[in-house]
């Protein structure tokens, strides 16, 4: 019965640097449909956090409403979490982030949650460069409400009821680039070798890191004619480059060919190692990313991988010049320094 998961794990599970095994990053057993792409993304998130030796209590999961937004229950069961209102995860994230800048924030949303009801919130989260990872589990439909076309469904894509979508799709990575997101990537739930390093790089990035992950809805949008099905995505996927994430402490031992590879140093000292770069694409040049995206679209290809990164980005706290101590740790005497201090400030205006 899949409402019970056995307690046993592989006997040779190894521990990471903070003493946890991969099992310590699991959550409750999933209640999503068997074969849902979202479950694989949950697996990749858990894997990335395990590999990065993140202590679970240092991370907060935030989500809205949707099958995708339910997933935080199914990974990192020992982390903080807030399941907010439909499309309102960015404002909850903004509040949490301002209150405590010391946590790692992981937002999980759906294409409906982000590109329809939550669009107004999403764009401001990007604009303010919140220091968070923002994962969209993109299946081109409203899975939870039985598969209506969403705003990311491609024009002409055929849904389970057989009708073609008449509307233009919103391309979330294009939009993210346009709005000035400082880390933009796209991936596929079924490609963990690409997705896990991207999540790790996104966590290391000091600003808003958007990953649009194509994640087939097996129940409502995995039919022939859908452009978000397993078969279609596999057949049309192209990558900007293969991605490796190299943590800060690890020495790079493999020799990479300078011409076809590139190493990007991230803010925290870790690296993204890219190999077999696409022609005329520079991961630090936003325009080249937009061009590459448009060219792929014209060729009916789905461009995946890292698209753009600005390693030294100034996030919300930098832009607002907040104090180093998280707000929630400031005591009354810090926030309200007393009459004498007020007097001396007032003296300054005389």
């Amino acid at each position, binding site marked *: *019965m*899949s*409402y*019970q*998961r*056995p*307690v*046993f*794990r*592989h*006997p*040779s*599970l190894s521990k990471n640097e903070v003493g946890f095994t991969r099992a310590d990053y699991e959550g409750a*057993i*999933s209640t999503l*449909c*068997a*074969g*849902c*792409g979202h*479950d*694989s993304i*949950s*697996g990749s998130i858990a894997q990335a956090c395990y590999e990065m030796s993140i202590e679970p209590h240092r991370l907060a999961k935030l989500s809205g409403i949707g099958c995708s937004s339910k997933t935080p229950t199914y990974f990192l069961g020992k982390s903080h979490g807030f399941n907010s209102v439909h499309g309102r995860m960015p404002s909850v994230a903004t509040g949490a982030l301002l209150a405590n800048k010391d946590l790692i924030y992981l937002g999980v949303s759906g294409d409906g949650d982000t590109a329809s009801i939550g669009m107004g919130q999403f764009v401001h989260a990007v604009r303010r460069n919140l220091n968070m990872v923002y994962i969209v589990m993109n299946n081109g439909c409203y899975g939870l409400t039985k598969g209506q076309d969403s705003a990311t469904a491609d024009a002409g894509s055929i849904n389970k009821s057989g009708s073609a979508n008449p509307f233009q799709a919103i391309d979330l990575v294009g939009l993210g680039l346009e709005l000035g997101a400082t880390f933009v990537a796209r991936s596929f*739930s*079924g490609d*963990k070798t690409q997705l896990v390093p991207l999540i790790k790089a996104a966590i290391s990035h000091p600003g808003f890191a958007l990953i649009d992950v194509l994640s*087939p809805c*097996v129940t409502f949008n*995995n039919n022939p004619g859908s452009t978000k099905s*397993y*078969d279609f995505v*596999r057949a049309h996927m192209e990558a900007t480059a293969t991605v490796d994430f190299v943590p800060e402490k690890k020495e790079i031992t493999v020799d990479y060919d300078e011409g076809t590879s590139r190493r990007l140093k991230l803010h925290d000292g870790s690296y993204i190692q890219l190999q077999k770069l696409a022609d005329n694409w520079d991961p630090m040049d936003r325009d080249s990313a937009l061009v590459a995206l448009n060219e792929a679209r014209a060729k009916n290809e789905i461009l995946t991988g890292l698209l753009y990164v600005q390693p030294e980005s100034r996030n919300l706290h930098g832009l607002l010049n907040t104090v180093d101590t998280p707000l929630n740790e400031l005591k009354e005497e810090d926030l309200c320094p007393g009459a004498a201090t007020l007097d001396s400030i007032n003296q300054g205006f005389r």
Partner: protein
Amino acid sequence: MNSTNIKDPEYFHKVVDCQYACPAHTPVPEYIRLIAAGRYSDAYLINWESNVFPGVLGRTCDRPCEPACRRGRVEEEPVAICRLKRVAADNKTDDVLMHMPKGPFAPNGKKIALIGGGPASLTVARDLAPLGYEIHLYDDQELGGGMMRSQIPAFRLPESVLNEEVDYILRLGIHTHFKTYVNSMKEVLEKDYDAVFVGTGAPKGGDLPKLPGRWDAADHIHIGIQWLSSVAFGHTDKIGRKVIVLGGGNTAMDCCRTARRLGGEEVKVVVRSPFKDMKASPWEIEDAMREDIPILNCMPPKEFVIENGKLKGVLFEKVKAVYDENGRRSLVPTGEPDELIEADDVLVAIGQENSFPWIERDLGIEFGKWDMPVLDKTTFQSTLSKVFFGGDAALGPKNVITAVAHGHQAAISIDLYCREKDLFERPAPTTNLIHMKMGIHEWAYDSAVVPDQRYKVPHAVKEVTLVNRKMEVELGFDQPTGFKEAQRCFNCDVQTVFNTSRCIECDACVDICPTSCITFTANGEEEDLRTRLTAPAINLEQDLYVSDNLPTGRVMVKDEDVCLHCGLCAERCPTAAWDMQQYLYAVTKATKILV
């Protein structure tokens, strides 16, 4: 790697670790499920078909299945397979008789002689009698059962249990010739038997004939197995207060525990080798120690010390184990002074040998190394075509379950031989795969995996057992505990069957699998593949299940090693590419027993 051929009957058989390790290939998980369902008689019959002595074996089996059990690789201890068998035997009802073959059987005109009445011969008798063979069983003892009767003490195996299971066979119309020692094979061959089976065991106990003093106190120095059978048949009923048992095997454990019950108050087991190298099963050692019997190690005997013409004790040297670079052990003196341990009686339990003084060497039955008969390992046929061997007589001292396994195979050979068929055209095993799916989250087996640790079998108190040599020590699981222990079984016979053409490579099975068994990856040589899986496949005894090529060019690789058979992969698979299917595997017997 090539994709796995699951049509090979041995592939899924091997996944059922316990059944594969059992010499008679008893369908263990099948009977364990029946016990959990309270169907004790059915569980008993499943056993009876395969191993003939479920009640005996549920108490005394060497249990090669348990070290093999998958559960032992996932948590501390394997399923108590052996003691569950006893639960079936203890709780069965008389309806088992209705399902056993019943005579009289129409004679087929062939006559078979079985020499020796141990488990090997009795198995041959059971398998052949229903086919109409006239079977004559010869044994020098008063009753059937061989060493199960003469050696295994009653406090481990009550006589009533043995009698019941021996009778299930004898009532098939076997002609018994008890108290008849066969002293000439030539005479047997001169009679009109169509075939002869030798199941005479390994009846000769090891001795220390050259140890000084051995023959000066012969009345108080006994050969372990002779002494045990003399106790079993009531010829010996006491022993001195101080007893030394020499040897570290299971016979030594039975000797010391029997001595405790016959008046031995200070019984000590003294072993040449270190504790960890002792041959006795860990549970037998544990039981002896629980009866306040110290085990002294690294002390080889030097001489029997005689004082005033009377045994005073045994003088022991002190040694330690030293290992050379090949790991070969030698015992070297430590230089400490020798130690005299006093004793009124000494039991020598240092091994057991075959001995065939009654088989003339000019009959065409060839004997080879260590004076053992030259046999074909598959057919158990000797160099004289109508003579077959099995049990301890065939390959040296082993155990009851091995004797039974030999008996089944010898019976097939004898039947083929009597029908003038090729002995190497042996019947294939019966196999069957059955879908277990009943609903989205429902299977026809209990797929949930319980976290319970192994339950302990309760023992009767020492005050009672040590004064009565026939009082059984182990009390067996009661029904509720039997149920709980049965639930610990992973149902390894319910196989994960993969259908490549249905897989959409969504990874759902990979993500849900609690023990990281499944990987989708590029194919490669086995050695390389084993390192590239979700969890490295380090247990080389366990196979990798490899699919055909998938649309992405990858293959599905499942490491069978620690699969819990929980069925989650199949539940989470959107296309039913994974299915849970029960694999029934049965060694074909000369007679189909359960119909």
